[in-house]
């Protein structure tokens, strides 16, 4: 297989370890006087967007940043719980840049680019330094130094954290840097604005059309470069751990204007989420992977065992992850843990009323921590009750906010009974195809963070999303954007009166008018639910060719129904969340079709993409490296029409192996 001539990943020559440092020293620079005249548009203010906007403004560029929320601080990075990886080796347990690189490539089931992932591992340490300097209150040991914990798919402790609110603390750090620039006037912030199209002039991205969500007005904004930091598209499944507003619209508009979409079918189903409780449910809530450091996952050995979890004796429990994967146990990567849970439930061993749940149990951890506390305080005759009390206190300090959240949602107290968990859609490894510079196939249009496809292959390891978002924004784009902008210094100010802006705005307006005019019978919400059901059943944790073909037919019908029967209340001239929702659902429907097409094309199982036809006798994913070791980059050609371009993945530094966590 050879890489399509339409794709140039622009990976620097030379040995892997020195690619980035050499590139950084040779990439063209833009002098400070010219930076002042170059405008950059940043869409999305999560970890990637906020860190990029602040850093580019610090460098002297003129930046405009956009978010649909009421404040940049609310981007969904805020909800990330467990932590952020960095190859600091502070624990002296053998970590290194190479190991983080290796774990990430292996965790991604050999479907990520070596050069990008190595760069990510290289800058990971700088991220922690930067965040600490900005006042992020990471967890610390009594000596005042930083604390670490383990995450899935690794055998070292390299995860930095702030209780179960690491994403919040990192985002507030990046946000404060952004607000500092806003205060200095170097970033102009547009809250409650949604990007509804990009504008290309002579083959280059020159700006965006945004809608002011309060007034409904359409606005034209010009820039010499546009950065889409707009997050993932997990909400295509309706139920996911994403925020209600998380959407694919910005990335999808870019796709329809020429940006190729990479690996759309690579979806991460997170193993530890609170199970669905009923039809009314609007979203799913994650219980951080960090809980798998201490929690043990099990189901009853007996089918349809209806006893409460804490009444089932030890020898009647099946700790299936520890049984199947003794080397990694409860800390296997997410895709493997999710499939194992589904396997047990499908086989009839599930728990709870829906039987679609397994237990995550802290009883052993409570006892272990309780005994450690007794030892620490030199108490040798402690009662069992005391030990449990002390153990619970330790667990509360480590995971208190997560336990509280579980209790609020389920009404059950996880300090007393084991948690019930089930896999749920959490993250999308796929996204806009980008080269080494993070530029899409449209010159001048970049994509950062979860919105791009680049670093996680077919499965992302825990605590790597925060790392990638901040790496892209703080340490990659500030350098790589120079390669493009150095040639833009003669462009001058871009006029929004250009016919391309006029035309793009007219098209956006026409679409909004159409949506409002249909006045059918079905709300955007109900269409979203229907799409989610198709996607979860046929393009979810397990997929097969027949189901995918059905899904494609059903989604095409759904799209037709949507455009003839959607009912959007109100008008376009004021704050109208129903209209915003309709716009987003329309794009999700088109994306859903492409995800199924991509899943159908990939006749192998790898990472989060599990095709039932391709598995080992033990039920593990069966890759086909000979035929599918590529990134699929889809070019939009028209309605129901895409062309596949392949980027061959070349592994010079890693020996490809069947992924084993046994």
């Amino acid at each position: 297989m050879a890489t399509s001539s339409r794709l140039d990943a622009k990976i620097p020559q030379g040995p892997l370890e020195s690619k980035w440092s050499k590139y950084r020293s040779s990439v063209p620079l833009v002098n400070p006087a010219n930076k002042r005249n170059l405008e950059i548009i940043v869409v999305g203010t999560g970890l990637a967007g906020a860190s990029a906007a602040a850093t580019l403004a610090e460098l002297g560029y003129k930046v405009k940043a956009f978010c649909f929320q009421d404040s940049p601080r609310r981007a969904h990075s805020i909800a990330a719980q467990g932590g952020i990886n960095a190859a600091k080796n502070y624990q002296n347990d053998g970590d290194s840049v190479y190991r983080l690189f290796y774990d990430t490539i292996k965790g991604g089931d050999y479907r990520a680019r070596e050069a990008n992932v190595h760069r990510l591992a290289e800058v990971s340490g700088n991220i922690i330094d930067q965040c600490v300097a900005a006042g992020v209150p990471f967890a610390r040991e009594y000596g005042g130094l930083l604390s670490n914990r383990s995450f899935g798919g690794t055998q070292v402790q390299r995860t930095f954290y702030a209780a179960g609110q690491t994403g919040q603390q990192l985002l507030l750090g990046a946000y404060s840097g952004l607000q500092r620039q806003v205060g200095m006037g170097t970033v102009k912030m547009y809250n409650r604005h949604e990007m509804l199209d990009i504008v290309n002039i002579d083959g280059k991205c020159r700006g965006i059309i945004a809608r002011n969500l309060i007034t409904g007005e359409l606005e034209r904004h010009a820039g010499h470069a546009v950065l889409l930091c707009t997050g993932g598209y997990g909400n295509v499944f309706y139920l996911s751990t994403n925020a209600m507003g998380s959407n694919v619209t910005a990335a999808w508009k870019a796709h329809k204007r020429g940006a190729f979409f990479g690996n759309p079918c690579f979806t991460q189903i997170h193993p530890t989420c609170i199970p669905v409780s009923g039809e009314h449910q609007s979203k799913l809530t994650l219980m951080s992977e960090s809980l798998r450091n201490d929690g043990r996952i099990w189901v009853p050995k007996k089918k349809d065992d209806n006893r409460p979890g804490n009444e089932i004796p030890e020898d009647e429990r099946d700790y299936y992850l520890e049984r199947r994967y003794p080397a990694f146990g409860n800390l296997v990567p997410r895709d493997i843990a999710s499939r194992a849970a589904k396997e047990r439930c499908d086989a009839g061993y599930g728990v709870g009323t829906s039987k679609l749940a397994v237990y995550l149990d802290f009883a052993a951890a409570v006892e272990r921590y309780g005994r450690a506390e007794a030892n620490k305080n030199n108490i040798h005759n402690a009662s069992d009750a005391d030990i449990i009390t002390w153990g619970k206190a330790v667990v509360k300090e480590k995971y208190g906010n997560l336990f509280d959240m579980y209790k609020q949602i389920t009404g059950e107290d996880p300090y007393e009974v084991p948690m019930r968990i089930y896999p749920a859609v959490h993250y999308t490894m796929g996204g806009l195809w980008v080269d080494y510079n993070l530029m899409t196939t449209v010159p001048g249009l970049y994509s950062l963070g979860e919105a791009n496809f680049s670093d996680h292959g077919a499965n992302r390891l825990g605590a790597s999303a925060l790392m990638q978002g901040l790496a892209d924004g703080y340490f990659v784009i500030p350098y790589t954007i120079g390669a493009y902008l150095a040639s833009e210094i003669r462009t001058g100010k871009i006029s929004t009166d250009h016919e391309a802006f006029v035309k793009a705005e007219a098209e956006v307006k026409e679409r909004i008018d159409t949506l409002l005019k249909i006045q059918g019978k079905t709300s955007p919400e109900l269409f979203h639910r229907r799409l989610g059901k198709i996607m979860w059943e046929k393009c979810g944790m397990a997929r097969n060719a027949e189901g995918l073909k059905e899904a494609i037919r059903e989604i095409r019908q759904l799209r037709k129904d949507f455009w003839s029967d959607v009912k959007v209340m109100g008008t376009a001239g004021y704050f109208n969340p129903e209209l915003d929702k309709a716009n987003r659902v329309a794009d999700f429907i088109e994306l859903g079709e492409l995800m199924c097409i991509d899943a159908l094309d990939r006749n192998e199982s790898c990472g989060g993409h599990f095709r039932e036809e391709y598995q080992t006798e033990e039920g593990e994913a069966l890759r086909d490296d000979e035929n599918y070791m590529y990134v699929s980059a889809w070019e939009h050609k028209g309605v129901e029409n895409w062309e596949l371009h392949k980027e061959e993945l070349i592994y010079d530094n890693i020996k490809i192996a069947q992924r084993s966590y046994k």
Partner: protein
Amino acid sequence: MRLSLKVWRQSNKEAAGGFEDYKLDNVSPDMSFLEMFDVLNEQLIEEGKEPVAFDHDCREGICGMCSMYINGRPHGPLRGVTTCQLHMRSFKDGDTIVVEPWRAQAFPVIKDLVVDRDAFDRVISAGGFISVNTGNAQDANSLPVPKEAADDAFAAAACIGCGACVAACKNASAMLFVSAKISQLALLPQGQAERSIRAEKMVAQMDAEGFGACTNTGACSAECPKEISLENIARMNREYIGAKFSSSAV
């Protein structure tokens, strides 16, 4: 469950608003408060009426977007819980529930239950940061922070910026929000260089936004979904007075 709702409806910032009554017949105790509003909105759309606008996003209690004033209390009856994490099992069959937006001069209503909280962003812009450009940082472990200081800073930094403190306060004071950020940064060694100027600038901006004064009733902390402690306000007062003695920058 069957519920009666009295919901504040207001079409825009300038328009006069008023309560509308709605009835819901089929509410599950396992629904979150916002999911109950989803059901209400679907019902309104069925009836051809415009749905109620309300802010919400993560629905897991961390983004700070949701902002309903429920039966006279921000985020409703439970302690330490946001509206999105409030479940209908906290109410009784047949209850009448009154829902209003945050009420404060500095938070104008945009529509129905949605308010404009940009004032908070401007307060942060005034000084709620450490001035460190990307790339300037030293190795993270070269600066030990005593665990207690780190824990206290984290507890202050857990503020989600929802504005419940302002809504709870009879003076619509933002002292708890502002003090949480000032405390976080004052407790950490990294925040020392700008400690005085930060307190002065953030307080000046807070006043300029039209938030009221603090009269130490403590309603803010009692209603805060993240239970941010009143100690932060005491610390902020010390920081501010100390800054005023030593500088005249603002």
